[in-house]
């Protein structure tokens, strides 16, 4: 597969993910490629030449490429090194990927740059320096060979880990050249490859971590085992921000295996010789919580708080084109609708886990973290040791979804380790703790009002959002003109040619802590926007796709909205006759630097059971680095997205989250998973994100189809609240 610009749109169909085929492929990979992992602490052979911090070449031609971000299943542990290998002209079969560490980054004054895996940033924010790192190393190797042969550099070519002198056909391997190349000064400027000449970027390369995952060798944060390690189970106040008033642990203190019961002020921890004992004992520790003033909060009160935000007089203005109020008053037809999306916990497969070991003023941390540098900073501050004394050991994450970038759990773990100084302690949350102490995707109330002229052209659009601000409450960042960019994402930057647009925002915070849930604002706002656009299309009596295409202006960015919408609707056969009772829905979005569109085909029976016949979902990420990984990301996003769309909802009663585990916070099941067809349509010239954008068009496309099937507009999620169930 080729990711060059102007390639034909490619449709990838991986129906049902044939497990046997998958295992076969992975097995071959593991045998064929010697891609392994070492902890970065491995003794570095003094004679292993390092061309720069990213590339090390061993005499046996093994190329070690470092990866500085986190791997939580998103696949960048493979795609980011591919980018270096591309420019290096490395033989991928001889590449081994190793983690860079946060402490090494600190020691080298951030030689590896930002290490966070958030915001679908890994590829788009690091591609430039990764390409340069690869190209620099390649030029050093080529120059070394040219010098050895005493020929001009221009007569030498690098390919597949070898430099060849074209005229004489002499060649030297990278392993033979590396020692001398490493002594050279790195070139200050390098020529990056023309994307048309890429041989690795754009190819579907199996993920390097899969063989180890399949045989159970891969170490996740939860797998950490250390000699003499203790285990901790924790419970925070069920009402957010509450404190421990008093605690009575007399019932469990003398039990077998219980080492200590800790009152940490904000939470209670039981430390034991194994986790099950700790967790069971914790249930019998009697805690009197000081719940503060928020012990009576309910979902209804939160909704009233949001509704009041809709009517408040002073609002932050996120976008103001033309004169919307005036245009609305003059419109031939005005439509108004309110949409709502609920709070959502992340429910990562692996709950929060962190192991910490404080020995004197030295601290070691093994954490499933999306941001190892933040882990280092929080660990040092909590333990009260210098940052240079902290080591954060990279572990694979059993899912992150945005929950594992804030470091509340790291702080808890290091607090426990400090109380148990000298002993390593692994702190693991229960599923209940994870669901009830999340940093939730904010609930959001959105009001849309649009005015159309007599020909059905939309002249004015007013979108008002009443919702909490993640930036103001979690990150405590100053808001630009009072606007939280995520609360109005995809509204303030909607691509449609509507001359009068007003987007305003009422910041309505509650005691429920909010955070970054995969796709963040794009996980909810496109649902409102693209469903309301469908309402407008219907009111105008126009086909939803034609209606959108008509509204897309001819600008540089809008042509990408147009091209992805065209690519996906073509792949889905939009306009073709559907079987009786089957209905389609469409949506088009942009976010995280990529453009996405989705078409869903559904039928709804008399029992309100929704059958999803088809999901066609596509992306224009500019360049598609590892297409099969994009397919996997999109399939995963559909699983995650459908879970949220049908069942995802955290409700509040007496100040606490009512849901506690998978029985009342339901996940998608294997047999319910519909067919997903992924359209990868890269137009080149930019680097967009992949991990998050797929969530954006899925909910509106699906709900548009369901609304069409039911002849009734659905304006809130999850669908279970409308009596709808998913038919396997």
């Amino acid at each position, binding site marked *: 597969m080729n990711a060059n610009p102007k390639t034909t749109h490619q449709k990838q169909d991986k129906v049902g993910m044939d497990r046997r085929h998958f295992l076969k492929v992975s097995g071959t990979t593991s045998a064929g490629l010697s891609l392994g992992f070492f902890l970065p602490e491995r003794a570095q052979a003094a004679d292993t030449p390092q061309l720069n911090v990213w590339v090390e070449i061993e005499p046996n031609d093994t190329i070690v490429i470092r990866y500085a971000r986190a791997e939580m299943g998103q696949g960048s542990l493979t795609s980011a090194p591919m980018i270096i290998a591309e420019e290096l002209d490395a033989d991928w079969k001889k590449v081994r990927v190793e983690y860079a560490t946060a402490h090494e980054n600190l020691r080298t004054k951030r030689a590896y740059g*930002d290490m966070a895996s958030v915001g679908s940033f890994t590829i788009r924010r690091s591609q430039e320096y990764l390409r340069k790192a690869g190209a620099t190393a390649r030029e050093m190797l080529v120059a070394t060979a040219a010098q050895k042969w005493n020929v001009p550099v221009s007569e030498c070519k690098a390919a597949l880990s070898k430099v060849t002198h074209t005229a004489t056909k002499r060649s030297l391997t990278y392993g033979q050249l590396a020692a001398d190349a490493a002594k050279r000064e790195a070139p200050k400027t390098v020529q990056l490859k023309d994307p048309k000449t890429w041989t690795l970027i754009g190819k579907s390369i199996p993920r390097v971590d899969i063989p180890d995952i399949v045989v159970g060798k891969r170490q996740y944060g939860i797998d950490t085992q250390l000699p003499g390690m203790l285990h901790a189970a924790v419970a925070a106040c069920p009402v957010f921000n509450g404190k421990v008033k008093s605690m009575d642990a007399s019932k469990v203190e003398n039990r077998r295996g219980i080492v200590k019961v800790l009152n940490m002020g904000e939470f209670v921890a039981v430390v034991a010789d194994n986790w099950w004992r700790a967790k069971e004992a914790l249930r019998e520790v009697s805690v009197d919580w000081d719940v503060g003033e928020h012990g009576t909060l309910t979902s209804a009160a939160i909704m009233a708080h949001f509704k009041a935000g809709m009517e408040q007089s002073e609002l932050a203005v996120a976008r103001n084109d033309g004169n919307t109020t005036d245009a609305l008053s003059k419109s031939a037809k005005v439509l108004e609708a309110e949409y709502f999306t609920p709070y959502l916990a992340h429910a990562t497969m692996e709950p929060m886990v962190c192991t910490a070991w404080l020995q004197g003023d030295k601290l070691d941390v093994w954490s499933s973290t999306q941001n190892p*540098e*933040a882990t280092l900073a929080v660990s040092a501050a909590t333990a009260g040791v210098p940052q240079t004394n902290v080591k954060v050991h990279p572990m694979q994450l059993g899912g992150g979804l945005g929950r594992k970038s804030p470091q509340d759990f790291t702080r808890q773990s290091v607090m426990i380790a400090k109380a148990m100084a000298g002993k390593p302690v692994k702190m693991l949350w229960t599923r209940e703790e994870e669901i009830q102490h999340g940093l939730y995707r904010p609930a959001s109330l959105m009001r849309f009002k649009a005015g159309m002229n007599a020909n059905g052209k939309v002249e004015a659009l007013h979108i008002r959002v009443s919702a909490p601000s993640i930036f103001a409450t979690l990150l405590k960042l100053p808001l*630009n003109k009072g606007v939280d960019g*995520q609360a109005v994402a995809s509204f303030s930057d909607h691509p449609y040619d509507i001359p009068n647009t007003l987007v305003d925002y009422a910041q309505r915070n509650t005691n429920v802590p909010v955070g970054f849930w995969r*796709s963040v604002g794009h996980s909810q706002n496109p649902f409102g926007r693209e469903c309301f656009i469908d309402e407008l299309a219907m009111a105008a009596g126009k086909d939803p796709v034609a209606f959108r295409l008509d509204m897309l202006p001819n600008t540089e960015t809008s042509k990408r909205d147009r091209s992805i919408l065209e690519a996906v609707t073509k792949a889905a056969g939009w306009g073709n006759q559907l079987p009786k009772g089957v209905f389609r829905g469409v949506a088009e979005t942009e976010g995280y630097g990529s453009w996405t569109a989705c078409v869903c085909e559904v039928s709804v029976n008399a029992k309100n059971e929704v059958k999803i016949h088809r999901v066609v979902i596509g992306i224009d990420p500019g360049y598609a680095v590892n297409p099969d990984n994009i397919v996997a990301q999109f399939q995963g996003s559909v699983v995650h997205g459908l879970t949220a769309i049908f069942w995802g909802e955290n409700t509040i009663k007496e100040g606490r989250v009512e849901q506690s585990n998978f029985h009342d916070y339901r996940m998608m099941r294997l047999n319910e998973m519909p067919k997903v067809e992924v359209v990868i349509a890269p137009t080149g010239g930019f680097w967009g994100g992949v991990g998050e954008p797929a969530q954006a068009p899925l909910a509106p496309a699906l709900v548009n189809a369901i609304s069409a099937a039911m002849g009734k507009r659905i304006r809130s999620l999850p669908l279970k609240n409308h009596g709808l169930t998913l038919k396997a």
Partner: protein
Amino acid sequence: MKAEGCLRRKGLQSLLLVGVAWPWLNGRFAHAQGMSSGRRISFEDMVQPIVKGAKLVQRDIKIEAPILADNGSLVPVQVQVQSPMSEQDHVTHIYLLSQRNPVTQMAMFQLGPWNGRADVTTRVRLAGTQDLVALARLSNGEFRYNQMEIIVTESACVDAS
């Protein structure tokens, strides 16, 4: 003597409180004025409103702060200025300046020979990775400064494309 020492300490404490309170007050004021953060300003733009062309040298100041901050909401900073703190030669002010916050001057401490040493500790709020400048005004009207980059790790799935 004892009573005086106690008073001094109280005086110092209240000064520190002022240091903490300033960014908040100013922040609100700035918000009302519709100022925004995010843009990094130049070193000259940071210091000149205070220095006003007087002599400015980078020496004699030590900044103690974490290189990495998990988020910018609460970053401890210590500033020590080498000075005899005598009647003739002392530090009169220490300013903490932000390159990127809505309000550049995060804190100002007034000092005099009665302090004994020019050493202040406070906590500041930082709107993202930026250079922090500690600026000291001496009794002779000259200025000393030092700067430090503090990395506020971006633990945010934000779409800043």
